[in-house]
């Protein structure tokens, strides 16, 4: 089995340089419609980091200058903060959100600093505590319902089963551990 894998992989080396994509770290990536979700489970604690381009959340990525824009950003931030509504763990697991922090340049009315210019992102950090972690089999991510402009979430997770990757979309929004 390993030889087979080796042969297949050897073929990939040729394309390896192509696959290497651009030599930038994941943190620098910014594509509209695509967000990132990082999830780690240890003990009875679940930590989630959500990074999404402003365009997915509010439809624009400049600092809000109009009142309407400011309202939209504040409303979005409030929705993002409601982790219990965005992430539905199995009822049996008895998970409760402990905290949620929303960060975004768009939330600060700082006229001097321009930061990333027109590519503002939202970064949200959630932590949950679960009464029965053994019942943590999956989480239904309701992010796409809340933010219809978002199309995809690239997931990286570390669970009791090890590390894993997944891709969530509006039509397949259940993340199985």
């Amino acid at each position, binding site marked *: *089995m390993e030889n087979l894998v080796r042969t297949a992989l050897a073929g990939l080396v040729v394309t390896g340089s192509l696959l290497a994509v651009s030599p930038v*770290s994941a*943190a620098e990536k910014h594509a509209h419609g695509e967000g990132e979700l990082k999830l780690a489970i*240890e003990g009875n604690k679940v930590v989630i980091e959500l990074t999404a381009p402003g365009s997915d959340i509010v439809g624009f990525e400049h600092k809000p200058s109009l009142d309407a824009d400011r309202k939209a950003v504040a409303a979005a931030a409030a929705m993002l903060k409601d982790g219990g509504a965005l992430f539905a763990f199995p009822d049996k697991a008895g998970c409760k959100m402990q905290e949620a922090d929303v960060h975004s340049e768009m939330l600060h009315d700082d006229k001097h600093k321009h930061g990333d210019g027109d590519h503002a992102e939202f970064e949200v950090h959630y932590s949950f505590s679960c009464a029965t972690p053994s019942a943590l089999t999956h989480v239904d991510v309701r992010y796409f319902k809340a933010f219809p402009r978002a199309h995809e979430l690239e997931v990286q997770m570390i669970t009791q089963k090890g590390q894993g*990757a997944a891709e969530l979309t509006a039509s397949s929004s259940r993340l199985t551990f």
Partner: protein
Amino acid sequence: MSRAPILSLAVKSLMNRRLTVGLTLFALAVSMMLVLGVEKVRGEAKLSFANTISGADLIVGARSGSIQLLLYSVFRIGNATNNISWKSYQQIAARPGVAWTVPMSLGDSHRGFRVLGTTGDFFWHYRHGRKRNLKFSGGKPFNDLFDAVVGSDVAKALGYNVGDAVVVAHGLGREGFKTHSDKPFKVSGVLAKTGTPVDRTVFVSLEAIEAIHVDWQSGSPIPGMSIGADKVRQMKFTPKAITAVLVGTKSRFGAFGLQRSINEFPAEPLLAILPGVALQELWDLMGTAELALSVISVFVIAAGLLGMVTMLLAGLNERRRELAILRSVGAQPRHLFALLAAEAGTLSVAAAGAALALLYGVFLIAQPILDAEFGLFIEITSPSRHDLTVLGMMIVAGTLAGFLPAWRACRQALADGLIVRT
């Protein structure tokens, strides 16, 4: 005629044709078993691949692509674009969230197998499959500067045993290129089969990698300068650079943050990857192979069902009399239809049961062999919900496939009457 007698009649009729029915049942059971088995092996192979390196939380290398880093650091395929300076390595190792680090230095080879310079911690921290440790089938980790540990494939292919001498070649060429023949290594340990690239690797200490290059410059021996092995033993070596680092974090929560901070490392461009994530991305790239297996499974089951339908259809001819008699005692065409369909259904159910028995029998026998020969560990578990769904679908498909001979039986019975034409 109520339903139950039809079923018992079906069973009795099947029993009457034991041999052909038995063979058909066996063929059907084997095809069902293959589908389940292929699915199970596929799942286990994927899991085993995804856990090629399950102990490390992060792999750090020079900045390139994540798959490239994975390929050279774990699979020893291709080469690093750059090194990590020893200083950066020490800084990473000293980060607060870091529990342990294992430095790795690649670039030399031994008769076609890559040589990995590392520390003894590698054998302790490396995990594969379901968090399994590396095991020594003989000997122990390296102790002396010129000790080497070989993977099981290396030992098998080159016939190495503990105590044998090994000469490392510079670069990745075959033997006979430029060898470090003045500093032979001794095999101190042989690792048990893992089914991972570890099997194809020669391990030496990090210092040894430096030591064999002590009288070399720019990839060639310095003419007139040769330092013997004993003299080298007394020298102290600190590597200037390494190829990659395995990192274990204190908590799972720390892994993402550490990854981000290493990716933004100020001193040099570094890349940290979550090996499990990169492995899964790599597996997904090979998704066509997985699809091929699924397609094969479908054809296998189609062949099995075809066999059953053929048997039932062929049997109709020799059962003309039986069916005609049933008609004479008052069986309606729909009863005959039900009879034949019940036969197909009974066969399918029996085949599903036999398939499960066969599957577990085969796994019980094959498990130690697969583990020893291929390092693929098949965990024997009770049938998953998926397995049961697949079996259920196959039973339904089998019963439905029985509708064709059943329909033929009705038609035939109507046309035949009681007179048997030969």
